């Protein structure tokens, strides 16, 4: 769609007459973005705070006093099932994110760049998993595994996660690839690049932001899934499963600390990638002209 609008004007934009007014209001959007992100972080702050709590009983609901003892590795790693759950969740998250991102991105490419028989059916088949209530997916998959005599466990969790992540990946990547401007690829081909080189040097960088966003979404979906996982987990425990079960007795502060550490790893990853991005300009993005 709308490919005619998408042609690139080459002339640098002339400074418009509205620059002045624009400057005055330039703080609005960044502040707004900051507020929304802060809003998303509110519960995280509470989680971090209660990782430093010293609860009187087994429930960690009420602030009773400051302590750092839960960060002591002996205390932190006290619950081996929780440790294993964290390990499982991360491993399952990474594997299913990788597989679903690859599968989903390929489908997104095919859907937006090729016309072929079965497109409509594929489109429908892709968004039905999103429309199915989780419990139905969980029960239906379990029935399949039982009928095939497959023992549920780590592998079946990964299978189910890949299954429900694919659709989300396709939709996200498609938001990037639809109305894709192919003139750059054609140019590369005209310059003698083979399809493989064209893909990696032109196509991939162009759709990378979509793939990145999709993989983050897939990871978040995977590490946070409870319902589908609970049906297909067998003896394997993930973070949501353990925490949900523990909530009957009282979720220990160690869960908050683990959450905080995972969050910290995320933050470090962000910082490192900005730093590297600054140095290498690794992720090509259209040049941005500040207001």
């Amino acid at each position, binding site marked *: 769609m*709308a490919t005619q*609008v*998408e042609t*690139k004007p080459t002339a*640098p*934009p002339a400074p418009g007459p*509205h620059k002045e007014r624009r400057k005055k209001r330039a703080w609005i*959007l960044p502040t707004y973005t900051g507020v*929304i*992100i802060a809003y*998303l*972080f509110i*519960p995280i*702050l*509470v*989680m971090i705070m209660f990782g430093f709590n010293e609860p009187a009983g087994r429930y960690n609901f009420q602030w009773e006093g400051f302590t750092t003892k839960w960060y002591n590795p002996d205390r932190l790693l006290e619950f081996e099932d929780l440790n294993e759950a964290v390990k499982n969740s991360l491993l399952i998250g990474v594997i299913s994110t990788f597989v679903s991102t*690859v599968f989903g991105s390929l489908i997104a490419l*095919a859907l937006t760049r*090729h*016309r*072929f028989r079965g497109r409509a059916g594929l*489109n*429908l*088949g892709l968004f*039905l*998993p*999103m429309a*199915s*209530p*989780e419990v*139905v*997916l969980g*029960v239906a998959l379990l029935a*399949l595994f039982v009928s095939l005599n497959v023992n549920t466990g780590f592998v079946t969790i990964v299978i189910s996660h890949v299954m429900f992540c*694919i659709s989300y990946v396709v*939709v*996200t990547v498609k*938001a990037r690839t639809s*109305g894709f401007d192919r003139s750059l690829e054609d140019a590369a081909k005209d310059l003698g690049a083979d399809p493989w080189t064209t893909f990696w040097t032109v196509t991939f960088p162009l759709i990378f*932001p979509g793939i*990145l*966003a*999709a993989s983050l*979404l897939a*990871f978040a979906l995977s590490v*946070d899934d*409870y*319902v589908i996982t609970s049906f297909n987990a067998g003896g394997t425990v993930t*973070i949501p499963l353990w925490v949900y079960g523990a909530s009957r007795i009282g979720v220990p502060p160690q869960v908050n600390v683990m*959450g905080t550490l*995972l*969050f910290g790893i995320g*933050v470090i990853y962000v910082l490192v*990638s900005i730093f590297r*991005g600054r140095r290498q*300009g690794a*992720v090509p*993005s259209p040049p*941005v*002209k500040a207001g």
Partner: protein
Amino acid sequence: MARRSRRWSPVPYLLTLPGALWLTVFFIVPMFTMFSVSFQEGNFEEGFVFTGYWQNYTNVLTRYDTQLFRSLAYGLIVTLVTLCLSYPMAYWIARRGGKNKNLFLLLILLPFFTPFIIRTLAWKQLLGDNSIILGTLKGWNLLPESYQVLATSTAVLSGLIYNFLPFMALPLYVALERMDPSLLDAATDLYSNRRQAFLRVTLPLSLPGVFAGSLLTFIPAVGDFINADLLGGVNTVMIGNVIQREFVTNLDYPEGAALSFLLMGMIVIGVFLYARVLGTEELTG
């Protein structure tokens, strides 16, 4: 786009093969079973048998129409609110985020890597009747003593909006980021009015993102049950809660399955209508 498509090529089939195969085996086949289950009769101890009992559908429709329409209404509200909330943010990140775009992207999603229960518990701590927020306001007599947020529709909607915001923001960002900034500048000059430029260039070009974001928000939000479960009250039960209970507690698989397919059918119809309105060819291909 159409240029190449005349000639038959194996490329699109090869691209879709792994994903499509996966979905066929692990989604379509099991869902076929479920579909047949929705026409069964019986109970979990003596077993269910297929009798073509289509009344499962009419039974659940008459019994749970309130929850069904409430869920659709919640889904619509959540989609609209998240769209309005996240568009300006996605726009700013995409247009002015500079080299830190990916940082913002990750920041939006980081909170969602922590267990849902922990996040919800935090909200309940903050929104309790005597919490820092409500308790203080009540102390200043700005709110009546009996005022509450938890256990109301407001709480469920807030929970849904909070949890689905990234699902809207990410595709919006992805679509907006694609736009050539010089195009926008040119448009600004052309229409001599920023609002005009936005309405005529930016917004139409971001429609794939709006569509994708709405799908990712509306569909799972309608079927959600956990927000209503943990934040809601006695009059906020959603269809997801009913389905969950039919399957897990009542073990009434036929009715649960019928309700699920009813829900899916309504969503499919709704989405196709929406695609028509937006004029996108995303779905119809």
